[in-house]
């Protein structure tokens, strides 16, 4: 490689080496700080995660507020539900009388695991992060109903946990983007495989923040590739909107983001670890959520193929997807059709949001108008 592998000026400060514990980046929100409760939360395999409860303040007694767990997508974080610049999902849930809980699972950009630390696969998320968080929330909310609203990989791993029977008795699940049947465009899949195979011995993650890597680095070709045919000059926007971490997919409809959100993209979405690619590829080529660990018996609680175990789903599911989803395409419609055919007893509904892409269903400035109504209606019917 002609490029230098490290740049002394951009190397991380030494603090990371002396600190022994993992710390979470602070949440960025406009709520009263007193109402945001950060819970020190560790999974049973010993990984520090972020779990946040939004207290309802003095609005209404907590005892009749159903809890809603919000799961972000991979490399995003709980910040995606708390955008201060627009009407966000947490605002809408609080106003409608719910108690939002935000989990930063190990793929969160508030945590360092995407760049450093030990490798993980989506099996770990499905086996440890989500079931442990649900268990913890249940100890706090008692008999109150618990809903889950999950986005992208958060939803994909949730489908694995659900079909494994690890999170029984949820009151309802809203899944955005992808659920049991992930489907990528052939081009995206090919580029993901090629890039992963070529780069995996050289780099271990794909950064998105141009300001942190600088103009001349080993990532420069990646950013250059991502800028091909891009309409927006911002390199971070290019590698996300135009290329989705180099895969060539489109993550959101550009005009749906406010300028502020657009400028904060590097904060909202972090680097993608290359080590996850083999599992993602296996899942995508099979068009179903499959387990990575075939020989490790710690993971035997998870089904080998989540779709085959879909009969274990015991809760109504709302499948949401933007009609212009450039990453997962029409996976949700496919999931609805497949489940309607193979598991007709399940309560699965599919709602398409016209004109929306993937991320803008939560980050878009009109998301409250176009998307949250569907979520609130679904929760309201089942609370």
């Amino acid at each position, binding site marked *: 490689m002609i490029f230098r*592998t*490290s740049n002394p000026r951009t*190397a*991380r400060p030494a603090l*990371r080496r002396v600190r022994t514990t993992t710390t979470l980046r602070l949440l960025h929100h406009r709520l009263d700080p007193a109402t945001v409760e950060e819970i020190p939360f560790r999974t049973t395999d010993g990984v520090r995660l972020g779990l946040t409860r939004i207290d309802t303040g003095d609005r209404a007694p907590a005892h009749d507020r159903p809890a809603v767990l919000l799961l972000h997508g991979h490399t995003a974080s709980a910040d995606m539900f708390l955008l201060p610049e627009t*009407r966000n999902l947490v605002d*809408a849930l609080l*106003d*409608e009388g719910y108690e939002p809980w935000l989990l930063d699972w190990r793929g969160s950009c508030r945590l360092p695991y995407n*760049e*450093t630390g030990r*490798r993980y696969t989506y099996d770990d998320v499905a086996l440890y992060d989500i079931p442990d968080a649900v268990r913890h929330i249940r100890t706090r909310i008692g008999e109150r109903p618990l809903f889950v609203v999950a986005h992208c990989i958060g939803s994909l791993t949730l489908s694995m946990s659900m079909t494994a029977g690890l999170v029984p008795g949820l009151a309802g699940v809203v899944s955005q983007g992808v659920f049991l*049947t992930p*489907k990528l465009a*052939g081009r995206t899949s090919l580029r993901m*495989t090629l890039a992963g*195979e070529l780069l*995996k*011995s*050289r*780099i*271990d*993650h794909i950064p998105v923040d141009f300001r942190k890597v600088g103009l001349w680095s080993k990532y420069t070709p990646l950013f250059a590739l991502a800028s091909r045919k891009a309409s927006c000059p911002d390199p971070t926007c290019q590698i996300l909107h135009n290329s989705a971490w180099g895969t060539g997919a489109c993550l959101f409809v550009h*005009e749906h983001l406010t300028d502020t959100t657009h400028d904060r993209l590097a904060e909202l979405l972090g680097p993608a670890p290359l*080590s996850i690619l*083999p599992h993602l*590829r*296996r899942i995508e*080529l*099979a*068009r*179903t959520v*499959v387990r990575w660990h075939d020989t490790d018996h710690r993971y035997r609680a998870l089904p*080998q*193929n989540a*779709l*085959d175990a879909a009969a274990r789903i015991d809760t109504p599911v709302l499948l949401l997807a933007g*009609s*212009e989803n450039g990453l997962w395409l029409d996976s949700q419609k*496919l999931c609805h*059709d*497949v489940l309607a*055919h193979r598991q007709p007893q399940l309560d699965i509904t599919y709602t398409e949001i*016209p*004109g929306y892409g993937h991320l803008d269903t939560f980050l878009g*400035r*009109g998301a*409250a*108008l*176009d998307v*949250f*109504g*569907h979520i*609130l*209606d679904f929760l309201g019917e089942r609370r």
Partner: protein
Amino acid sequence: MREMKDNVSAAADQRATAEAIERGGVGLTVTDLLAKVTGSAEATVRPDDADPPTPRGAGPGTPVPVHSTPPREVDALAAAVAAVAGRYVPAGQLAPDADFFDAGGTSVNAVELVSALEEELGVSVDLDEVFADARPISLARRALESTGSAAAVAAVPEAAVPAVMQPVQAPPVAARSLTTPSDSTARPDDLTQILADLALADRLPFTASPEPLPPRRILLTGATGFLGSHMLLDLLRHSDAHVYCLVRAADEEAAVARLGEAVKGYALPWSSEIRRRITVLPGDIRHPHLGLTDERWNTLAHEVDSIVGVAAAVDFLRGYQSLRTSNVLGALTLAELAATGRPKPLHHISSIAVFNEVGIPSMGEDDPLAHIDRLVAGYDQTKWAAEVALRRARDHGLVVTALRPGGIGGHTKTGAYNPQDLSSGLISAFGRFRTVPAFRYLNAAPVDWVSRVAVAVICEPDAWGFDYNLTGVPNTLDDVVRDMAFGGMHVRVQDWDEWRTDALARLQADPISELAFLTRVLQSPTALKLCEATLKGPAATADRTTALVEALGLRPASRYDARAQLKTFERLAHDGLAHLPHKDDQPYLWFTEITEGTVGPIGATPDTSCSMSLTLSIASMHQLVTDRRVDVRGEVTCPALHPEPLTVERGDIWIRPEEGIPHRHGLRHQLLRYRLELTDTDGGRWWLEGHKYARARRDLWRQTRALTVQLGREGEPASLAGEVVVPADSYVRDQIDGIKVDPHLTSQEKRAAKLTWLAWFGLEMGRGLLGPFARAAADLLDLRRTPTPTEHHR
């Protein structure tokens, strides 16, 4: 509705008259009737006539005292007509000076009214007359005119009609002095009225310029309409404003319900998140002060910082008199509100109809409008009058933006369309009859683009105060024909007159309730003129809009082509307006397939022969792309089921069903799925389910031909299983060389159809076969050693 407020005694009188007419109607002459109803005519004077409610009412020349001169004959007949007409409006009664359509009468009601008048009163009125001016008093006058009492009629100027909705009447002098050129096509009455209405703008107060800030509180009228509801959502999405929606309803609850129904009806979201940002005001643009209380009017005048007037009565059959209260007086009331209190811009949704004159040379944003005396349809006249009146309002300091959409097509993403829209009707007629009239340009743009650009203008102070053509990129005849062919509908072009006669004959021979309004349009001479002007007009240009769209970084206008129309077309088809090609129609393309093999009881060795001789057909490429499905007919010979061949009652083949996801965990991907319903000669019913599978093996040629089948009696589990295969030597002969295409197509279209099918099917099969190999290859790659990350900042 104002008519509801009429005093009860008048209503009772009218009803009594109506009942009397109904009971004894047959033997009565007109004179008898007149004698009967004269008494009640006096009572129908509205109580609220006493206090003219609007400042605009203080016109020059005191209104002629009511009932001073008119002969009793006209009034009496008008009362009789009103009594009959009252039965067809929701309120159950109609004042002689109130418009039948404004009171809620529909075009169907109008047809019924005409025959009722003929039957019960012996008054024969032309249907077109009703549409031109549907006030009972005018109908009465016209009826008397035609029966020879012309002298009496001439003595009754327009102004003598007791009018509440018309605060200012046309001065009779103007009517006489008005000279019209010989090629004028407008009715002189209408021209007089238009001039009088234009003069209303001169009475607007003078006002200062509004603050050039994005709006925070917007008053929106017409939010229950097609464009209005899309604009409501876009205003909420693209601004932080709170929107006040003026909705016609009895009270606020009903208004909210009505708005919600309308918004949901256009496939738009309606939730608490939307309701928290709007305030619904029950009111009516046809009324002075919008039908609001003075307090609310004043509050709005001082609080609202932007007014968006979308509301309009869109009807191509009705005349100027019938539409002016909504379209002209309504716009002027909004101008009054804009000029009162805090200065605020008025954004007026006009229409490209202001250019709708046969033979107009160009339709640019700053080009002269049509000659008013050559506009025919009342709708065109009202839109012209409103825009010209608001131009005059600009001289009073008011900032007026005129936004002129052309045809507003269905939403490109949701497919929501306007069922009463002429272009929807025409498109569905094109698809249904497979013919199009020769037009020059269709100036139409999808509603999402029109609404987005209109909202961008409203939210951008620099853009206020100009005229914009929101017409998008015009479609030429060639574009439309090509687009429809692309969608599998090969249409033939006809001359406009030929098309009209032909379409009308077909619509009358086989009435389609959803297209009834199109039938009426094609029968009405005025509406036909409107259609003709639309179809023969030049392409609208929109330089200012284009520049604005570019400056604001909005999606540039693109042609409203087949892809953009697809969702709308699907929705039209779903609602019964359009007609998608169906399996019972002449297939677009078909070929035969022969399979041979053996089946046997489940678990045993298959040893009974089984063969199928099928005809595979598709009705259109649309079916392939959306359903991925091929229709099957033919027969199955299987002695294990029945000695005689079984007929395929209904059969489908899905190509790569469920994206090929295996039935069970593994590498056996689905390639094709066959589902046939069979009947034997004794009436027994059977089913056959077959699959072709792709596997990561080298026998690809066999994978594409071998069909694993299961058979069983209807409603019972499978009793036989086996495998049938397409013989290798028949494949090319039947399925490539043997493809037949709809004989109505030209040879060029046939070749294109055949190639498209082969390319599509080949690609799908290729993708299906590749799936298992890709997974196997990925498994091999995963065997590679995972390197320890080398990066510095671990």
